[in-house]
């Protein structure tokens, strides 16, 4: 198993319990989509799988080791094998796209080579290649601040692809792209995963995209696994209970009080 979680609780520093009693295992080379309502804990789960956040309780195993029992040097070595694609990639506005993409290999390079790369990009063809697959090759030497949200997301994906990890985690990777581009990008990620035996876990808001590209779907609600099914077995009913929201469905029932349009105060 590449990723194994048992009895995981995660409490944020502000006290909210984001994940509770999570049981999950994902094998190497699996492609999994995580769906669920906003605030269900999808991002927290991905951060946990990326060993970016420690669990408050339970057993976490990533690529055969428990990241929070390792020394920080060993944990950094483990993290090199995992890539997390952020929904809004945190890139310095003044950084050039080529630098932002090549930064994917910083863990591997060490300080000397990284500083050299800052003076003159070491691997321009490599960066151009991954950007080309995302239809961004012409933006190679543009500053990140000149890109749109969807283009920035693709730069983030290009960095993860360039990192060449064993586990690729993606948090809403296509949320700022048009439907055609989103479809293409997800297909590219899946193809990359299949060709290289990479484990791919992506959280998505668009259920159709999840069902179209991923063989396994995990529904998350209130920090718990709501369902964990093959894409072909996910039914309308599953989705309805996953996204059910009493607060949003109420306004139709509660009529606005007709007695007084406004109540006079003093």
């Amino acid at each position, binding site marked *: 198993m590449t990723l194994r979680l048992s009895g995981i609780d995660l409490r944020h520093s502000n006290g909210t319990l984001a994940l509770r009693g999570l049981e999950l295992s994902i094998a190497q080379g699996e492609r999994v989509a995580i769906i669920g309502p906003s605030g269900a804990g999808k991002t927290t789960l991905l951060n946990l799988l990326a*060993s*970016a956040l420690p669990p408050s309780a339970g057993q976490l195993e990533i690529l055969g080791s428990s990241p929070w029992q390792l020394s920080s040097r060993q944990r950094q070595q483990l993290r090199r094998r995992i890539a997390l694609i952020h929904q809004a990639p945190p890139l*310095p*506005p003044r*950084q050039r796209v080529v630098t932002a993409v090549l930064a994917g290999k*910083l863990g591997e390079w060490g300080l000397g080579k990284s500083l050299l790369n800052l003076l003159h990009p070491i691997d321009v063809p490599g960066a151009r290649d991954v950007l080309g697959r995302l239809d961004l090759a012409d933006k190679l030497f543009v500053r990140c601040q000149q890109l749109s949200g969807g283009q920035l997301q693709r730069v983030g994906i290009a960095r993860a692809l360039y990192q060449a990890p064993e586990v690729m985690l993606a948090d809403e990777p296509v949320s700022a792209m048009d439907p055609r581009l989103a479809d293409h990008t997800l297909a590219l990620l899946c193809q990359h995963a299949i060709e290289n035996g990479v484990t791919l876990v992506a959280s998505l808001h668009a259920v159709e995209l999840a069902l179209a590209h991923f063989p396994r779907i995990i529904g998350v609600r209130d920090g718990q696994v709501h369902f964990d099914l093959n894409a072909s077995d996910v039914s309308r009913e599953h989705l309805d209970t996953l996204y059910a929201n009493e607060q949003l469905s109420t306004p139709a029932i509660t009529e606005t009080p007709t007695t007084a349009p406004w109540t006079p105060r003093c």
Partner: protein
Amino acid sequence: MLSRDRRDPAALPRLLLALLAVALLWPGIRLAELDPTVLLKAENARTMGSFVAGFWPPAHDPEFLSLLIDATLQTLAIATAGMALALVLAIPASLLASSALSLSAASRAGRPGWLGQCLRWPARGLLIFLRSVPEIVWALLFVRAVGLGPTAGVLAIAITYAGMLGKVYAEIFESVDQRPAHALMQAGSGRLTALVYGILPNAAAELTSYTVYRWECAVRASVVMGFVGAGGLGQQIDLSMRMFAGAEVASMLLTFLVLVLLADQLSRLLRGRFT
């Protein structure tokens, strides 16, 4: 109450803070024995007037000008060498003191671990010590150690400014967006690489502007230290003042104006490159 709708919950704290500031300032003014009316007394005004009257026209005979250029170059050299030495100390110290390089902060919602915070204190303490002693005191100390001349000025600037630069650099690193660096550290990169790729691009303009401003301050400070015999323009001003040669003082003040103006333009130029 109708006004309840419009009430701003921050209004009362703001008012109280303003009152507190006034309450704290008033005894400060009393303690400092500030009394502006002294300036307006006829006798004082006449003394100052006769001193300032000697300033015009500024001295411009060739002999004095060559002396002025020499002193200016020496001042610039003291300030620049002092800053360079200060940077050698300030950059490593700021890295040690800043929590922007904290690996644990990346996985704790930006709060560094307690052990790291404890280890940062010695670096902070060193920077506090370096800048808490005024540069003029260091200069007096070094004049005794290495004798009269620019060396004492360079060392004094290096030590005090290392403290200031280190502190402010550490705070600039912490004040910019930490997420790019955290994302890099979460992808396995080292602390220094994360700083260089994630924080420096955002902090570069601020760092440059502050460094150039400090260089400008170092030019001024080197003048003050000239008064205690550390060379440069300051020593010249001191001599001219003692000889009541107002015209020479005026020339030197004009030189200052030009230097500060140049520093300002340089800062603007460099900031433009980084934003």
